[in-house]
């Protein structure tokens, strides 16, 4: 059946297709990469040039990369400009933005810019670690299930489905609540451990369709091991798809971490953008009209995740010419 069933497209939740599979979307869900994988080697040389062309001319990719770079620079340069503990009480209480305190100060006299810069770092780290781990698990499960099939596939599928329906945040709630000290990486690892299922499912479907291609048969017939076939034949042929999946997992991890921090289950030391919002709400920044306290952290998250989603779409258009606007 060439009419793709929605499941094959694997809809990413939690800061999301796919697709859609190109695809498919819901709240906090960017389009699923729909890139057709499995191009033959002979097509790649010309395509590489084409990809470079579109990467350089595609506005979506350029703009999103620019936004991410700016935020990355702030994250790196911020701590140099404002050395010391970002939570230290350094300035006047509840001061609006000024030349000395660009983003103003909190009710307690903490420098919002210093917190913002260090929160950005935390956000990037959570995205990278959580998204990376989720991508790793998703790929392993997806490749093995899709390539080996059989009972192993059934079991992995069952596990995937179970983890998929458990609300990630709820699971993280009970787990993290019992940890008396929570670090950034612990948080990221827990996020990675719970947010991989949709990726596994999407990758499994792709692997499944690639498995029957001639070049995979050829490799198998020439005696290559399963591992070798997966890493030398299948993975490279869906590399663009895997990359898009990673981008979505990256953004998803950031959003989950923000929610967790906001409930008060974030890292117990340091700062994060979610924690800034938690404190702003807890200490009535809203009622006091201290917009400089709660606008930057949320804007930062929105900018990062939005840029990732737009980059995903831009890259999808590059990898999959059918989506380009004529």
């Amino acid at each position, binding site marked *: 059946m*060439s*009419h793709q069933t929605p499941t094959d497209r694997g809809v990413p939740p939690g800061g999301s297709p796919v697709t859609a599979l190109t695809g498919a979307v819901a709240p906090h869900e960017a389009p699923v990469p729909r890139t057709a994988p499995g191009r033959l080697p002979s097509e790649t040389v*010309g395509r590489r040039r084409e990809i470079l*062309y579109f990467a350089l001319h595609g506005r979506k990719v350029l703009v999103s990369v620019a936004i991410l770079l700016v935020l990355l620079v702030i994250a790196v340069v911020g701590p140099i400009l404002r050395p010391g503990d970002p939570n230290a009480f350094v300035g006047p209480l509840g001061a609006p933005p000024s030349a000395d305190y660009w983003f103003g100060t909190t009710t307690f006299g903490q420098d919002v810019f210093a917190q913002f810069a260090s929160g950005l770092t935390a956000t990037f780290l959570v995205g990278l670690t959580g998204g990376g781990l989720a991508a790793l698990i998703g790929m392993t499960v997806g490749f093995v299930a899709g390539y080996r099939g059989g009972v192993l596939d059934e079991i992995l599928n069952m596990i995937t489905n179970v983890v998929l329906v458990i609300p990630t945040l709820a699971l993280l709630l009970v787990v993290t609540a019992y940890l008396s000290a929570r670090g950034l990486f612990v948080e990221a690892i827990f996020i990675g451990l719970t947010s991989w299922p949709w990726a596994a499912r999407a990758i499994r479907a792709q692997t499944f369709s690639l498995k029957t291609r001639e070049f995979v048969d050829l490799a198998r017939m020439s005696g290559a091991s399963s591992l070798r076939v997966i890493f030398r034949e299948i993975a490279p042929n869906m590399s663009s798809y895997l990359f898009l999946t990673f981008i979505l997992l990256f953004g998803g991890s950031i959003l989950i971490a923000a929610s967790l921090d906001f409930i008060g289950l974030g890292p117990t030391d340091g700062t994060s953008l979610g924690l800034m919002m938690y404190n702003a709400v807890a200490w009535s920044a809203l009622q006091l009209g201290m917009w400089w306290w709660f606008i930057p952290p949320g804007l930062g998250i929105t900018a990062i995740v939005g840029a990732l989603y737009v980059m995903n779409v831009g890259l999808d258009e590059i990898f999959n010419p059918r989506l380009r606007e004529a």
Partner: protein
Amino acid sequence: MTLQVTDLRVYYRTLAGDVRALDGVTFDLADGEIMGLAGESGCGKSTLGNSLVRIDGRMKYVAGTVRLDGLELPIADMDRMDEFRFKDISIIPQYAMSALNPTRKIGRMVADLLESRGVRFGEMRTELERRLLLVGLTEAVLDRYPIELSGGMKQRMVMVLSTLLNPSLLIADEITSALDVTSQRAVAETLVEFRARGFVKGMIVITHDVSILYQVADTLTIMYAGKLAEKAPTSVIMQKALHPYTDLLISSLPEVGVRFDERRLSGIPGTPPSLLNPPPGCRFRDRCPLAFEKCAEEPPFVEVAPDHSVACWKVA
């Protein structure tokens, strides 16, 4: 004369420039003629079929005219062409297995389509059921979803639907490639039957599989690299083709005719030229065993015998 195509040029837009998939094609299709259109993949045969029905966003009409029953078709105008589609010119697509909306009952989809073209479904129903019986389907399929039908049933359903309004011209695009040999034969016979019953006047059967054409086609047209190489009655092509490419193509077939039985399946060495910037002159020159200086000029597609045209300096 059912169809007259004159100097048709349709290109594909790509980043690197226009791919000249159809680069000046001229031929006629007589009333009641089934023309086979064959060639390697990428030679432009499907582009030709598609251009006559629908030039989509990735294609670009460049030049040429198409006349059907004496009337010039506005093939470059997507909207005006709608009036001719289905009623005058129709297609059985390559993807017949997936051509039916998966979430609509087939009868409902047929009704939707007919009504949208100003034809009352109620008035067509009897005829539709008669034709379904002809291909071995019962009216029960109308109450089914596509997924409930086998591949062969879907194929036959699409064949009936595409020809329901008795179009003058039918394009059948690679319709046998997904089928086993027995089903291929049945499909081929159905096409001939449709013509015999006057469901369609003329037909262009596109395939890379010349053996199937041997069963159905009155004439064979061979394409190479966006141009016509040769057109002649099937028996002539099979027995005494003039163009060296036709010769090689026919002889590379595994199972056609007695003459080639002992021959091993031999591919033609070399590859067709890029259609991005095709070289001047005969496009088969580089692979041709008979090539000589004259081939640097482009050979015209000329009639060398009654109903036999060829584009080659050696034979013209």
